Every structure is written in structure tokens, then in C-alpha cells.
């Protein structure tokens, strides 16, 4: 629950209050400057309209190279979105003030500033507050997407719920965001109504009462954990390591595992930027210094990130070495020894079908492929080290191709909707659905060994980090990672719980000893 509270607080304060306030500070003065200047007005409204039409995810992607990941780009994006409704309403309000009121203000001898302060601003406030209401609702909603660039907020629950296939988490995030939006909307609606010219606030007492109740609830609920955690963070003299991960189960579990491991074996603090996004987002986060490390797969790094040709003869050890020097030259990062398993693509099918036909390798499929229905992820169908290359290497052509998400793929093959899928070799659902994996007998798929990729700067700064990570080498084998994936995907364990259970019970039975070593 404290996690929920701090996430809600983050969503409310960082991803709503700050961007909306920033947008007010930008939009209101702008409105006063442009409202009676037709050219400037259409430029300002046009620009903010264009910003509004950019889809949220595209906006976050645009900001990625400029502001990196984390809270800053999310705040920038949300502020940009919040500007239009406030600006538009403020301009409309100012332009539609009754001519007679302005004329009499001038005739009576109000100075320009007095007119603005005493007449124009108070009279436009209800409509301006209406704009702020719209902006707030937009912010609360769009903010759920900023989880994709590691900005936190309630979107974390939604995203985690989606990628872990956990409906309760998804609903928790979504309904909390909806409730937050409703509460804030009601608060602002009441403020707007109270500001309407000639309103007697005394007649709205029940609304004020309810607003006070909502506000107290919201502040009480959100600020308590913030106050609690700030005292913790202050005595952090030992350094901070930020761990990122991609957006699927195995990566999240590995992120947690690494985080726990570092916390147990060093006196470093760990900040988790898990579930960041796809490969490219993690890579950019690393190279721009937003995170210190994440787990990459050697094949992906080689072909997708570094765009290096593949030598089929190269051994896995050679590939790690090659990667290490390439990362060092290009990005000032280091590749540490592999964790001990490979997560490669694997063609997979129902066991009874494989046994009936006696299929053991991918080559065995070549002849029967025209009668088979295949299901692959969109990424697999596009990547050169995916279906295009595979079809060429094995002369495969399937009867039909189905574009399936990783969540659906395993169930689809199990229920006989497709015959073959492009599975991930470590996926726990291979065990759950008892699927057979065909051997890559022509060695088409490059080695996809899991390796930590770390910024050199962080290694120099925290020597204990490197030794801790090196200690993990070869400690997680294929069976172990598959079991971890199974625990989260199928048994619905929390990733952190699963990682902790693995660390304490299975391999490293020394947490009590190492937690006492930090010097405090």
C-alpha cells in the first residue's frame, strides 16, 4: 500500500499539479498579451493546437532525445498538452467580456492595469478555471502514459498489469486515475462556480464542505508517504544506482533481481526504472545517462543497436568481447560477463503434434510448413534476425501468418488456433502449456545471452557495483530464468517477491550475512 500511495502522490503532484501550474504560468500571461492582437493570437492558438494533435506517445518519443527519460520529459509533455485549453479559454473569456463593462471601466478612469486586475481578470476567471479543469483532466489521463519513459505515476500499475497480464493491477491504476480526475474536476468546478460574477458563496456551503472533505482525503492520502520517504532519502551519502529494464516479464524480474542483489551486496541505493519500454528506449536511457545499467541480449545488441555484421562462426565468448569493445568505443559503456542463460527466439509447437510427426529441428518443418498456421510477434516478423532471415535460412513458407502479441501467442498455439509460434526460449508459458521447442540446427539465431550493460562512469564511481555484478556471472541458468518467468507469468507472483525468493532460497543463501555488512 505505501507503494500505491507514493505512486498516487507522484501522479497527483509531479504529473498533474506541476504541469498544470506550469501551463497556467505560461498560458495566462500569453493570453493577456495576444488576446487583442489578431496575428499573434492565431500564431499562439495555432501552435498550441498543433501540439495538441501530436499523439501522446509520439510526443514522448520526440522529447526522448531532448530531455531523456524520467520525470522531466513527462512534465514537459504534460505542460505542453495543458497549455491549449487554458490559453483557449482565457482568450475566449477576455475577448467576450461585455463591451459596455470595459467601456465604462475606461470612461470611469481605470488605468490599464486596474482594468485588468479589477475587471477583466475576475470576470474571465470562471472560464479560465474551466480551461484549467480541462487541462487537469487531460493531464491525469495522459500522465498514465508517461510510465513508458520511466516517469512513474499510476500508469506504472496499468503498464505492469498489461505486461504481467494482471487484471487487478491494471484496474487499480486505471480506476485510481479516473477517481483522481473526477475529484480534481469536482474541486475545480466548485471553484469555478464560486468565482462566477455575483455568486454568494454562502449558498454553496455543502459543495465547499464536500470539496474540503475531498481535498483533505487527497492530501492526507498522498502527502503522508511523501513526508515519510523524504527523511529516508536524505542520509544517502553512499551513491545511487539506477537500474532500467525493458517492458516484459523477464526483464522486470531481472531488474528486480539486480536491484535486490546490489542492495544486499553493496551500500549503494537503487532506483528502479523498470518496464521502461522497448530496446531502443532502454538503450537511449543508458547512453544519455538516465539509467546506469540494464540487461541486454548479445544478439539484439549486436544486430539492432550496434548494427554489426554477424560472424556465424563467432563463439558466444567472442561476441561478448566484441560487444564490450564496441560499447566502450561508441557509448563509453561496458558489457559485463553473461548471467548464464540465453533468451533466444525459438519455434515452438504443441508437444503431441511434434511427437506425432517426429519433428525435432526446424529443418524438419521445411516440408510441412505450407500446411501450417504460424503466429509471431510483429517485431519478429520485421526483424532481419526474425522471420525474414529464418524463412530464407530454412526455406520456410507457412500456410498463413498471424500477428500475435506475446500474451496471446502461447494460448493461441495451445488452443490449436495456430500450429507454430515464435516463442521466447525462456518463457515460463512454454512450461505451462507444455510446448515443444524445435532445435535451431542451422544455427540461424545469433546467441542471445543476457549480459549487464553498464555505464563506464558508474563503474568508476562505484567500484563495488562492478564486483557485485561480476559475482552474478553464470548464476542464472536457463532453468532458473524459466522458473522465474513461470512464477510471475503463470503463478502470478509479484516480480520483486519472486526475485527475492530466488535470491534467498535458491542460489545465494547469504543475505543475512551481506545485509549486515553496510557500514551503518
Amino acid at each position, binding site marked *: 500500500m505505501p507503494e500505491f500511495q507514493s505512486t498516487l502522490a507522484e501522479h497527483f503532484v509531479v504529473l498533474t499539479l506541476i504541469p498544470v501550474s506550469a501551463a497556467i504560468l505560461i498560458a495566462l500571461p500569453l493570453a493577456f498579451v495576444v488576446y487583442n492582437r489578431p496575428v499573434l493570437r492565431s500564431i499562439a492558438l495555432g501552435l498550441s493546437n498543433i501540439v495538441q494533435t501530436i499523439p501522446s506517445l509520439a510526443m514522448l518519443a520526440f522529447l526522448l532525445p531532448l530531455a531523456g527519460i524520467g520525470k522531466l520529459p513527462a512534465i514537459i509533455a504534460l505542460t505542453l498538452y495543458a497549455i491549449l485549453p487554458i490559453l483557449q479559454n482565457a482568450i475566449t473569456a477576455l475577448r467576450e467580456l461585455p463591451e459596455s*463593462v470595459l*467601456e*465604462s471601466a475606461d*470612461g470611469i*478612469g481605470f488605468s490599464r492595469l486596474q482594468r485588468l486586475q*479589477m475587471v477583466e481578470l475576475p470576470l474571465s476567471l470562471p472560464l479560465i478555471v474551466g480551461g484549467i479543469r480541462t487541462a487537469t483532466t487531460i493531464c491525469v489521463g495522459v500522465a498514465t502514459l508517461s510510465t513508458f519513459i520511466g516517469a512513474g505515476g499510476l500508469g506504472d500499475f496499468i503498464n505492469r498489469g498489461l505486461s504481467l497480464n494482471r487484471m487487478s493491477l491494471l484496474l487499480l491504476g486505471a480506476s485510481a486515475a479516473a477517481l483522481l480526475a473526477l475529484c480534481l474536476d469536482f474541486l475545480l468546478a466548485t471553484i469555478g462556480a464560486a468565482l462566477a460574477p*455575483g455568486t454568494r458563496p454562502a449558498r454553496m456551503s455543502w459543495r465547499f464542505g464536500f470539496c474540503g472533505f475531498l481535498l483533505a482525503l487527497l492530501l492526507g492520502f498522498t502527502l503522508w508517504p511523501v513526508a515519510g520517504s523524504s527523511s529516508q532519502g536524505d542520509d544517502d551519502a553512499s551513491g545511487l544506482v539506477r537500474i532500467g529494464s525493458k517492458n516484459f516479464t523477464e526483464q522486470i524480474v531481472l531488474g528486480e533481481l539486480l536491484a535486490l542483489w546490489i542492495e544486499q551486496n553493496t551500500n549503494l541505493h537503487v532506483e528502479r526504472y523498470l518496464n521502461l519500454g522497448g530496446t531502443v528506449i532502454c538503450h537511449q536511457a543508458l547512453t544519455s545517462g538516465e539509467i546506469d545499467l540494464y540487461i541486454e541480449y548479445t544478439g539484439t545488441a549486436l544486430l539492432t543497436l550496434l548494427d554489426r555484421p554477424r560472424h556465424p562462426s563467432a563463439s558466444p565468448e567472442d561476441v561478448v568481447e566484441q560487444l564490450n569493445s564496441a560499447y566502450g568505443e561508441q557509448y563509453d559503456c561496458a558489457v559485463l560477463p553473461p548471467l548464464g542463460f540465453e533468451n533466444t527466439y525459438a519455434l515452438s509447437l504443441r508437444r503431441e503434434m511434434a511427437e506425432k510427426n517426429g519433428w525435432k529441428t526446424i529443418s524438419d518443418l521445411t516440408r510441412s510448413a505450407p500446411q501450417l498456421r504460424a503466429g509471431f510477434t510483429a517485431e519478429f516478423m520485421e526483424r532481419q534476425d526474425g522471420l525474414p532471415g529464418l524463412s530464407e535460412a530454412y526455406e520456410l513458407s507457412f500456410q498463413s501468418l498471424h500477428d500475435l502479441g506475446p500474451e496471446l501467442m502461447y494460448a493461441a498455439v495451445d488452443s490449436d488456433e495456430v500450429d507454430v509460434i515464435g516463442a521466447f526460449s525462456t518463457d515460463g508459458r512454454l512450461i505451462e502449456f507444455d510446448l515443444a521447442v524445435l532445435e535451431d540446427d542451422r544455427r540461424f539465431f545469433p546467441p542471445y545471452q543476457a549480459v549487464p550493460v553498464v555505464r563506464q562512469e558508474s563503474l568508476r564511481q562505484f567500484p563495488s557495483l562492478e564486483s557485485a555484478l561480476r559475482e552474478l556471472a553464470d548464476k542464472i541458468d536457463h532453468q532458473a530464468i524459466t522458473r522465474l518467468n513461470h512464477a510471475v507469468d503463470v503463478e502470478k507472483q509479484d516480480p520483486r517477491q519472486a526475485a527475492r525468493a530466488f535470491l534467498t532460497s535458491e542460489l545465494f543463501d547469504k543475505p543475512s550475512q551481506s545485509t549486515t555488512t553496510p557500514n551503518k
Partner: protein
Amino acid sequence: MAAWSDRHPIIFQANRFRLLAKTWISFGRGSTLFSKGQATGELLLIELEDVTKSFPGMEKPAVDGVTLSIAKGETLVLLGSSGCGKSTTLKLINRLVEPDGGMIRIDGVSVQERPILDLRRSMGYVIQDTGLFPHWTVAENVGCPLRIRGIPQSERRKKSFEMLDRVGLPPETFGKRYPHELSGGQQQRVGVARALSGDPDILLMDEPFGALDGVTREALQQEMERLRQELSITILFVTHDLFEALSLGDRVGVMHEGTLQQVGTKAEVLNRPATAFVKTLFEKPAKQLRVFQESKEGSPAV
């Protein structure tokens, strides 16, 4: 049943005629006040000299060579149909509109040389739509000319209560109300109280009663007449209503298409129209008035 008879259209028209007839009789008897365009009094307060104003996109100037003077304590009514330039002429005086040419002086000083806010704060301004501030109470509205000069709250309150009393709105009842809680006539009374609260020398009134119904309007006109006598303030009153012009002003200026056709006492404009326009304007009501007078008193008044 005063309420019924006041509202009955025929009786109402008759009332208007009665008011006009009073005027008619008064100048019929002793018509000694004559002058052309010049105020009779010795103290010239407002002088307009060959003032011209054109608005972009308009063929003819809105105000075309208007020369006019208003004496201290006098009420001058500018009469004309809509678009004749009467409102623009009024706004030239408090510089809501700046002239293209000519000279406007108040007490011998060009208005262009005075700081604009001082100038405006020295005049009261009343407009047809009242222009009351909807977010302020009646008392706050009335006190606002003092507020913008930084006069403290207690003094403002005292003054605005005094002014509300003066325009016939008990301050205890009306002070705390908002403008939208008042009738049209009451709102315009507040507008007048607001214009007077800064103790102005000059009151500019731009069709102040134009949006009101006949009965309310007449009541306010009478109220105005009373205030005028009490305050001895200089008033420039703009209207398109003939009867209003003839019943309120000391002198009447008739405007048509930007030019000032004639300025003079009521008797002058009625008896000796200077232009064909003025003649046609007053022909019909003058005739009606004669008929009215004949039927009432047996013989024409003139």
C-alpha cells in the same frame, strides 16, 4: 389605480405630451434666451472647436466640423438618430475617442494636454447598457471611482451609501445586492450613482435611458431633473428621443450625419429651425402638440 393608468399606452402617451406641453408653454411665454451655438452663461466649461473624427472604413466622417460650447451648470442635449455622430462627440470629450482635427477645451485647457486618467476621473460617465461590474455589489460599483483613486474602504462606503440614497435606492436594501438582482431601472440608477460618486464637474450621459421601458424611463427622467437642480452639475446628454431632448435640456443640439445642424434653446429649435432637417424633425411632434394644446385649452399656445 396609478399603476394601471401609468402603463396604459394611451394615457402614457398623454403623459409624455403633458411633459412636452409644459416645455412648450414655458418658452411660449417668455422667450428671451437666445444665442447661436454659444452658451448663454458667462463661464464656458466645455468648448469644441471644429472637431472632426473619421473611422477607418467609413465613407463620411463620424463627426464633421462640430463647434459647440457648454456653460457651467448647463444641461445640453445632443439629439439625433443612431449613427449621426452624437455618441462619438461625447466620447471625444473624455477621450474614449481621439479627434482627427479641431480642439476640445475644458475650462480653457485642451483635453489633449491633461493626463487621460485625471481627465476621465473628473467626469461621470453613464451609458445605455449601464456597464455595471457584475462581480461587484451595488455599493462596490458605486464606490469604484473612489477605489481607483485609492480612497479607503470606509470613506467609499459612506459615499456610496449617500449616492444610493440620492438616486432613490435605500442603501441598506440595495447596497449588498449584485447588479443582476436589480431591475433595469434600478440598475441605471446605480449607474448614475456611480457616475456621481466621484464628485465630478461634468456628467456625460450616453443614451442612459434608451434601453428602459417608457414608465421607468419617465421616472428616471424626472429623477434626473431633480438631481440636476440639486447638484448644479454640467451635463452633456445624448439621446435619439425627441421628447427626452425637449424635456431635459436647457439647450438642444441637433446632429445629422456628423454635422451639428443647430444648437439652441428648445424654443429656437422648435420655432426657428436652422436647416431643413431640423424642420422636418420637429414638424410632426409640433403639430401633434398644437392639436393636443387646442383640445386641452381651447386655443393654440403659440
